[in-house]
């Protein structure tokens, strides 16, 4: 029974986190009421507002778990969980800082040169510096080890050439944490010879081009590097140690509440319509989706609790991401199935607009951060089948 005993321990929020939740709710209610934001579906990957991010920075809600000596706030993972889940549930525009706050910051603190760290981290915490991820390429998707964009050693640094693709938020970002090939491919050790770099997106030779998604919106980008110079001290960690770093980074981003709450705001708005003249079918659907959200939240929060204790529940995180991202689509479809006709076709209702946005965004949920097919392969490996 050892293999299949998954751990999702009960997590009780400390009183300080509950107090924080009240503050965040009040802030969001005020912001929404005074026009600070209009709620949107998939807000962490489509709602870019540097101004909103700065407000969060001023309140101390960015870089929350990072050590105070580096400019962070030294708070717990659970407190950060509260802030992120409240932002997501409200559909707040948190895209600008999302990547930096979730994964680039921790990576920089752990692996960057001290003076580089001190240059970047306090600005991320203030909501004034944003990051993007440069992993995928035109010929590199799920097979990340096939990265071909390369960095060649030159005097005092590295010369970067190639193209990175699907970098969410690169058009509004300051830095890209970029996975590059620093030595030729060894077919027997494909994961070696890769390194991570912090690339200033304002460097000469960097060209960021927005790519419209199926809804016509620009959220992700193609970034071309043409003889871009990166100084030696902007290498992240050891040269050649990039693979291990990105694997750890991907694990970190897997089980967060953004995996099952991207469409929640659609549900929340639809409730205003659904409470009128409900049928048993409506009740059944509401019961089903709430049962799923509550269960996914229990699992996701359980993982946050384990991370707080220093554990690394990789299997659980992969399971949660697979199920959560599938649920995003299911939630929209279920809600759609019980909304009255007028709510579906009306042109000026927030509910209808959010539903459309949600449907147009949802194909990305089972692709980004590792496709569900890749995840299932990882789960099978953990179960001992591979």
């Amino acid at each position: 029974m050892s293999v299949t005993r998954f751990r999702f321990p009960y997590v009780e929020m400390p009183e300080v986190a509950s107090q924080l939740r009240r503050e965040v709710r009040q802030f969001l209610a005020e912001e929404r009421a005074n026009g600070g934001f209009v709620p949107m579906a998939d807000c962490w990957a489509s709602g870019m507002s540097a101004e909103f991010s700065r407000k969060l920075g001023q309140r101390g809600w960015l870089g929350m778990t990072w050590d105070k000596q580096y400019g962070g706030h030294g708070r717990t993972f659970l407190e950060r969980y509260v802030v992120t889940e409240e932002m997501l549930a409200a559909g707040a525009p948190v895209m600008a800082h999302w990547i930096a706050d979730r994964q680039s910051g921790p990576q920089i603190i752990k692996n960057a040169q001290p003076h580089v760290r001190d240059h970047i981290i306090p600005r991320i915490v203030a909501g004034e510096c944003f990051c993007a991820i440069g992993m995928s390429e035109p010929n590199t998707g799920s097979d990340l080890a096939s990265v071909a964009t390369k960095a060649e050693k030159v005097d005092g640094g590295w010369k970067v050439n190639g193209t990175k693709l699907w970098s969410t938020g690169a058009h509004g970002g300051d830095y890209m944490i970029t996975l590059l090939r620093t030595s030729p491919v060894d077919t027997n050790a494909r994961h070696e010879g890769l390194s991570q770099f912090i690339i200033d997106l304002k460097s000469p030779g960097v060209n960021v081009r927005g790519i419209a998604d199926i809804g016509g919106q620009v959220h992700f980008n193609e970034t071309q590097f043409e003889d871009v110079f990166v100084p030696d001290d902007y290498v992240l960690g050891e040269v050649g140690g990039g693979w291990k770093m990105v694997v750890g980074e991907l694990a970190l981003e897997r089980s967060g509440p953004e995996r099952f709450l991207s469409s929640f705001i659609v549900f929340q708005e639809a409730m205003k319509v659904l409470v009128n003249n409900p049928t048993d079918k409506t009740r059944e659907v509401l019961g089903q989706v709430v049962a799923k959200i509550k269960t996914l939240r229990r699992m996701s929060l359980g993982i946050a609790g384990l991370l707080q204790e220093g554990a690394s529940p990789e299997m659980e995180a992969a399971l949660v991401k697979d199920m959560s991202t599938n649920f995003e689509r299911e939630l929209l479809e279920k809600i759609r199935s019980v909304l009255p006709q007028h709510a579906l076709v009306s042109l000026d209702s927030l509910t209808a607009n959010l539903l459309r946005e949600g449907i147009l965004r949802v194909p990305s949920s089972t692709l980004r951060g590792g496709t569900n097919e890749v995840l299932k392969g990882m789960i099978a490996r953990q179960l001992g089948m591979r």
Partner: protein
Amino acid sequence: MTETDNIIFDTASRIFEDLSTPEIINAAEEGEWPQALWQAIEESGLTLTWIPEANGGVGASMLDGFAVIKAAGGAALPVPLAETLMAGWLLAKGGLEVGTEPMTVAILDPVTSGLSWDGTALSGTALSVPHARNAKRLVTVVDMGNKSQVLEFALSQLESTQPAISPHVNLAGEPWDTVTFSKAVPTRFADLEDGTDASSAEALGALVRCVQSAGAMSAALELTIQYSMERVQFGRPIAKFQALQHSVAAFAGQVAAINAAADSAAEAVAFGDVIDHAAWVEIATAKTRLEEAVNTGAAVAHQVHGAMGFTYEHRLHHLTRRLWSWRDEYGSDAVWSIRLGEEVLQWGAEGLWPNITAVSDPR
């Protein structure tokens, strides 16, 4: 589950492994009472895990009892241990002393129940009463205006004032009997403490089935993974085929989900040793969530086991048939999802999110 509960789960699993073998489970389906198994359970004190010391119990925590029930589900235990725990918990809520003999519960949907209790005798028919033919006592709960009572009946059928039993089985071949009360007189009855009534008894039944199912789902996944690594086709273990890996990964997700949902509900009940509204919501969540878990889990388990797992000889059906039956008992997902949906409507748009997060607020 906590570390302590994991230890209890392992201990109970070991006892069950030796005495709840496929042969014994099959024999039980043929009507043979596994006396050695029950005796071992009684002697180990497992029947009393939910009983306070003041009522003859061992002073264990309620979560310990849920760990035992999860292990019982994983072992496809052919005796009414879960029912004995439920009966004992209800008796203790009425302040009554509890023994160790096998008991069962007749808990009915409080809305549609046809049972009538006049203060001295009970009349009506209860369907699907687990192990009525094997149990020594039957416990039920009746609501009477502003109070509820727990009633205990002897099941020897020696006197006309005792309930009459006609044998039936559930989908798993477990003895789920019909019990007829014709002015049946309880051996004991008592007022239940506030907060426990017929609907909370039904909710407890629903939770117990979820916890058993969580155990059975884990066990079925374990069998499935093992089999996929042993069975060789096209020159390699079938576990190596990607299509099959993806099916099993989806199964694992369902196992993880139902364990998380069942644990959450068990913790909510254990916290106050009562089924309050917060616990009720967790139970409704788990019982609603159970359907997809069982549907996916049992389908993948059988698909991977192939024709072998479809035979009576193979033990897989001890788990899958129980799962298919348990998901319907004490209110199917159709019943519970509508109840939970009504609750969600009461929350409204404004209350939706705060009620979802309430479970992790400081208790």
